[in-house]
């Protein structure tokens, strides 16, 4: 069993940085029970990051209509797919998770998404206060899953909350 891989997804822009920020927080406080990687390129490259471990926690900004800063915690296979991209530049996390599912390269694990506000004004402004306030809760979720899998002796990662 490989170590759990934490994959932070994001860009330097505004709230979209949140996935990277949480990953960085995990990394700086990690007692070595996981491996942290970060990517600004959640396209096809993500397939290789996913394939590199059999248990993964993916961290990313999401929009579902919930309030900013809401923390979503889903099994990887339950991440809903958005609509299809119009260009190669639009291939994203959900597409790659679904594709990995079909091609057989999808690890077990969790998707932890932070609800963000995508306005043009926040682009160069850094993570907004209400989204940044979700960091401790998201970090706690990650830690809880790591602890649970460790307790289970690195065994099965099931779909539900049990």
């Amino acid at each position, binding site marked *: 069993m490989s170590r759990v891989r934490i994959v932070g997804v994001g860009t330097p822009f505004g709230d979209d940085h949140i996935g990277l920020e949480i990953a960085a927080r995990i990394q700086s406080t990690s007692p070595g029970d996981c491996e942290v990687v970060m990517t600004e390129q959640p396209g096809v490259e993500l397939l290789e990051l996913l394939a590199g471990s059999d248990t993964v926690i993916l961290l990313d900004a999401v929009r579902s209509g919930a309030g900013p800063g809401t923390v979503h915690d889903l099994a990887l296979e339950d991440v809903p797919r958005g609509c299809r991209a*119009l*260009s190669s*530049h*639009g291939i994203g996390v959900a597409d790659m998770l679904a*594709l990995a599912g079909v*091609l057989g390269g999808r690890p077990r694990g969790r998707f932890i998404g932070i609800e963000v506000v995508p306005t043009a004004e926040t682009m160069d402004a850094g993570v907004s206060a209400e989204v940044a306030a979700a960091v401790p809760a998201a970090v706690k979720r990650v830690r809880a899953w790591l602890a649970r899998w460790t307790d289970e002796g690195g065994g099965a990662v099931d779909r539900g909350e049990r």
Partner: protein
Amino acid sequence: MTARSRTIEVKTLARVEGEGSLHLTVERGEVTDLRLEIFEPPRFFEAFLRGRDASEVPDLTARICGICPVAYQMSAVHALERAFGVEVDPRVRALRRLYYCGEWIESHALHVHLLAAPDFLGCASVVELAAKDRAAVERGMRLKKAGDAIIRLLGGRSVHPVGACIGGFTRVPRPAELHVLRDTLAPAGDDALATLRWVGGFELPQRHGEIEFVALRHPDEYPMNEGRLTSTGGLNAPQEAFDSHVEERQVPHSTSLHATLDGRGPYCVGPLARLNLNVDRLPPEVATVASSCGVAWPNANTATSIIARAIEIVYAIHEALRLIDTYEPPVRAAAPVTPRASRGSAITEAPRGILYQAYETDAAGRIQNARIVPPTSQNLAQIEAELRVLAPTLLALPRAEATRQCEALIRSYDPCISCATHFLRLEVEER
């Protein structure tokens, strides 16, 4: 029959940083409003490149695009080498061509297999395609990896590569490294041929229209880093004359500029334009397979872009292997550079078409002015023109099909829309 007004909105929501959407209004069979709204980042780069040292430009411009960083680096280094009067070793030139092959392969493989192919096979997405034809998608992934391997070797890494610099590369590979690369690439040649046979069998829509295609043309080679600016409408000018032929204008609905050629109107750049203008520059082995896929070149049906891309994958692998087999390590990785107050511009063939960059420097080599004209902003007016031709035929179609056809048309240009994810909304207004 009552007058019908229909508004089709393809709303695109960004990951966060980008935004773009298609808004289309058709009244009584006439398009009364059509706007492809694109948020496009390179404009900001022009501003923040000012004051930077010229040596930083290749690394900075490589960040403009995650899919085609090599193209941004190549136009940048050629423009600045012209500004500073740098002579590049022909062996470095060959390596740059190899570097560009890598990007064409990875970018085209991604688009052909993951984006465009589902449009012609009745699949909603690549996920559905993978369930139906897993081998084809896996072949696409292998091809992309082969292209990435080239970029990784010459650029130091495949994402945001850093290897290119003014005068050459920061490091050139040892012959042994190219031997390893050759072993990776050689099997990709068969994959590329299989992909070309595959897309050659697709039933493509017939899109008709008068389109002026623009691409570089080199005396002997299929164009990448060099060549004159040519068009199917008779343009034949040195690269430096780009500005006097292409006019960029602002349109209220887009942060991207719209380009027109010699006052004639929109034009098309990209793989189809390259092939249309340079089919006689393909080596005989590639020309033979290109002519055996059921499409005559040149042709103006933009749906055949997928075949043009597949042909260019075959070509790029063929060319990469040739360059590896004839490789002689340059004596110096990079020619010495002496900055000066000057100006220089260059066009290279990015996977999506010609990419123009122009720079003015001061005596210390700091950037005073930067101009970046990416292929997508050149294609936008053409995409709108083609959507305008398509639009009247959409009225009679079910909503989902109308949206699908608009999307497929836009996808055949593979526009660079700021790394956005897209949600679709179709609004129908009937009166």
